[in-house]
């Protein structure tokens, strides 16, 4: 039994505070799974409209671990943004505001589960145990992403919007064909995408194929309210999670700023998939507090009061409030986490500045596993060209 506020149980579900979005509808009671309110009060369990009951059962240590994840992920992200502003990264897609959606879902993954990210899933990457320096090489332009997707069960970042949902669907169909579903230790696949991608053809095709082939996949949509500058009300007439019904699988909406609810909902959906119950669409209702990328200026398309309203729903502040109220964490612990985050950010910075530039010919290294005559010819041509310059070492 989780350490919950008993009063929270008696009160049952609470509506989230009204959003200040003009024209937008905020989810209210009954259409959003929430286990931790913005004020840091626990809700013991939530029953979704299809009868599924969501709850979490964490030890104190696990609660503290989730808090540590959230703080570290935010701090490393902020450091990357600063590095871009200082000319050390070409561009950066910040996850600010979406930490809980990523940590909650990332920690719900089992080691055998495979994840297909967009280019913003730095928090999920962190939870998969991948060195957080990895995406920075990509955004610095010195490599194409350096981790082994098979070792960490985390695919390469995909820049093309929504394309990874098809890759994930194919992978999940393969898991079925390998007979790796249907048991408690079955494999599941999770595909990340955003509210904007939900309008892509790729994503809708992925829904259809996954449904028809009963693929063991969880479609995890971080609805951060904006497709770059397009607000949600110009992307959909119905809540995104309701789309799943039309494709023939369940959809559920979770408070994406609530790490506990996100964990509970993702874990349940993954378990359904690994048991052979097919796909689920999760809409993690959250907000992108920063810019789409460092190249974007969000003040041009959204108003300050909207951002302020979401600040009150901060994913980290509510966990801190909960830990403090319940006596699970004291000031010493909070300060220690802050210090750890600061040190890790500093180390990240130093390592980014020391990243070597790649040798030009390494460009050809990973085009084909065993090379190809055409690529070899291109490599030779480039080598000759580079060698024609004075002082060239090639």
């Amino acid at each position, binding site marked *: 039994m989780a350490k919950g506020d008993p009063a929270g149980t008696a009160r049952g579900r609470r509506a989230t505070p009204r959003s200040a979005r003009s024209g937008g509808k905020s989810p209210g009671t009954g259409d959003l799974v929430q286990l931790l309110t913005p004020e840091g009060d626990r809700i013991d369990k939530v029953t979704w409209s299809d009868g599924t009951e969501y709850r979490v059962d964490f030890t104190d240590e696990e609660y503290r671990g989730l808090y540590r994840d959230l703080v570290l992920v935010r701090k490393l992200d902020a450091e990357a943004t600063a590095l*871009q502003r200082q000319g050390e990264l070409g*561009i950066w897609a910040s996850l600010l505001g979406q930490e809980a959606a990523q940590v909650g879902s990332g920690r719900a993954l089992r080691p055998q589960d495979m994840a297909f990210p967009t280019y913003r899933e730095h928090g999920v990457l962190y939870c998969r145990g991948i060195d957080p320096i990895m995406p920075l090489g990509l955004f610095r332009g010195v490599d194409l992403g350096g981790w082994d997707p098979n070792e960490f069960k985390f695919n390469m970042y995909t820049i093309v919007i929504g394309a990874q949902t098809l890759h994930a669907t194919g992978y999940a169909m393969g898991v079925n064909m390998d007979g790796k579903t249907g048991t408690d230790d079955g494999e599941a696949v999770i595909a990340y995408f955003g509210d904007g991608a939900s309008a892509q053809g790729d994503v809708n095709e992925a829904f259809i194929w996954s449904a028809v082939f009963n693929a063991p996949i969880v479609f995890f949509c971080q609805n951060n309210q904006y497709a770059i500058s397009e607000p949600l009300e110009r992307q959909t007439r119905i809540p995104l999670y309701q789309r799943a019904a039309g494709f023939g699988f369940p959809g559920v909406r979770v408070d994406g700023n609530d790490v506990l609810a996100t964990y509970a909902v993702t874990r349940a959906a993954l378990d359904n998939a690994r048991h052979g119950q097919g796909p689920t669409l999760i809409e993690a209702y959250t907000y992108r507090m920063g810019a789409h990328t460092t*190249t974007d200026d969000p003040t041009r398309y959204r*108003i300050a009061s909207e951002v302020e309203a979401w600040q009150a729903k901060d994913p980290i502040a509510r966990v801190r409030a909960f830990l403090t109220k319940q006596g699970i964490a004291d000031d010493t612990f909070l300060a220690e986490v802050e210090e750890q985050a600061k040190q890790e950010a500093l180390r990240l910075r130093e390592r980014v500045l020391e990243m*070597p*530039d790649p*040798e*030009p010919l390494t460009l050809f290294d990973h085009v084909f596993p065993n090379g190809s005559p055409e690529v070899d010819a291109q490599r030779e041509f480039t080598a000759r060209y580079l060698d024609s310059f004075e002082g060239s070492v090639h």
Partner: protein
Amino acid sequence: MSRVREFPLPDLGEGLTEGEILKWLVQIGDIVELNQPVVEVETAKAAVEIPAKWAGKITAIFHGEGTVVDVGSPIFAVDTDPGAGDLPEPSAASLAAVEIAPAEGAVEPGLIGGPAPGGRTAVLVGYGPKTGAAKRRPRKGAGVPASNGVPVAAPAPVAAPEPVRAAPEPVRPAAVAPAPRSGGSVSAPGGLVLAKPPVRKLAKDLGVDLRTLTGSGPLGSITRDDVHLAASGVATAAEPAPAGPGTVAPAFGPDREQRIPVKGVRKLTAQNMVASAFTAPHVTEFLTVDVTRSMKALDRLRKRREWQDVRVSPLLLVAKAVLLAVGRYPMVNSTWAGEEIVVKEYVNLGIAAATERGLIVPNIKDAGRLTMRELADAMTALVQTAKAGRTAPADMSGGTLTITNVGVFGVDTGTPILPPGESAILAFGAVREMPWVHKGKVKVRQVTTLGLSFDHRIIDGELGSKFLRDVGDFLADPEAALLGWT
């Protein structure tokens, strides 16, 4: 590593070549922490704060606010070890020597992906100090002319330990605080100048000696305009960049004219005014009103306890009058949309504000729903934000009806131009004590003139007149209007 590090303006958004310094958040001598915001820079894509790359003391700020700076140019310098005593006397020579960190200075722009010299690795996305002229790496083999036209004297040996530098190191502009932005006064030593052949021919034809000119083209090259200017006997001294149009004393050149680049708010204002003036047929009507009762009502309002710390100005009553009158004549709050007229139930009330950056018109969203007190607070916040230059673009878009308070400048009224997409704008003139016929006698009364411009495609003279008369009625007797209309 040098103690003093220069920070070159990075490409803040994928392929940008320049940025405008909006605001310095630090001063020379300030101690900054790592990642502390130092300066706001606006590019074509976004206005962003740049965080300090090093902790230390700010020793130099190279460009003033309002300056457009090329990507790669140093914008400030940090002494990374301010506790280690004074720096050497910053003579121009020592500054030039100190500020180019040797390791960074050795980076050749053409060497992307090559071995990183001096341990410096950030070639692909980091930026070394701007070297002025892009240099092409010399090719092996004979007599390949270098980019600036200087022939390589002899084929270099293949294994030359030092590559032949055909292009000499360009002269860096002296790094003194707010330097005037020059087009890059790079001229190759030895009397060689950069100019394209047709420009050289033009100079020859016009009898202009290219060596006497300062180029304004790319890399400091001389352009046709430079030659024409010289031929017309006008000096081509680099013109100082004005810090901000309108607010500073004009800096006249030798020709006794100042050229201010049209950009930012000025450019936008010009576009909007032209677009509006030549699409919407404007009609302007005037009404002079005795507002003594309004002024007295304001005095009484200020004395109420709950209003004591609120800024109450006559503009507040004008805003209220407009909002109430819109309720009576909703057509005034509309947009001409070609095939249809869009009449709005909500009023996003624009308030024109004069700021250091120029005229901006932020608006109060859905002002008709606000209570008097909320309206007062919103107006105060709006003006303060505008004056501080922090108005978000979203606050400036979507206006439906505007008030311009020209009275604060001491004039009686004006014929305002409609903001694009709006169909009415009210000018509120100065409130003056005037002789006025009041209850059959000439008395000293407080009087103002209202000027209403409206889009005649939507609003006929009758509607415009009724609307203006209602605004005037309210100001003449606000209590009765409130009782009568609400």
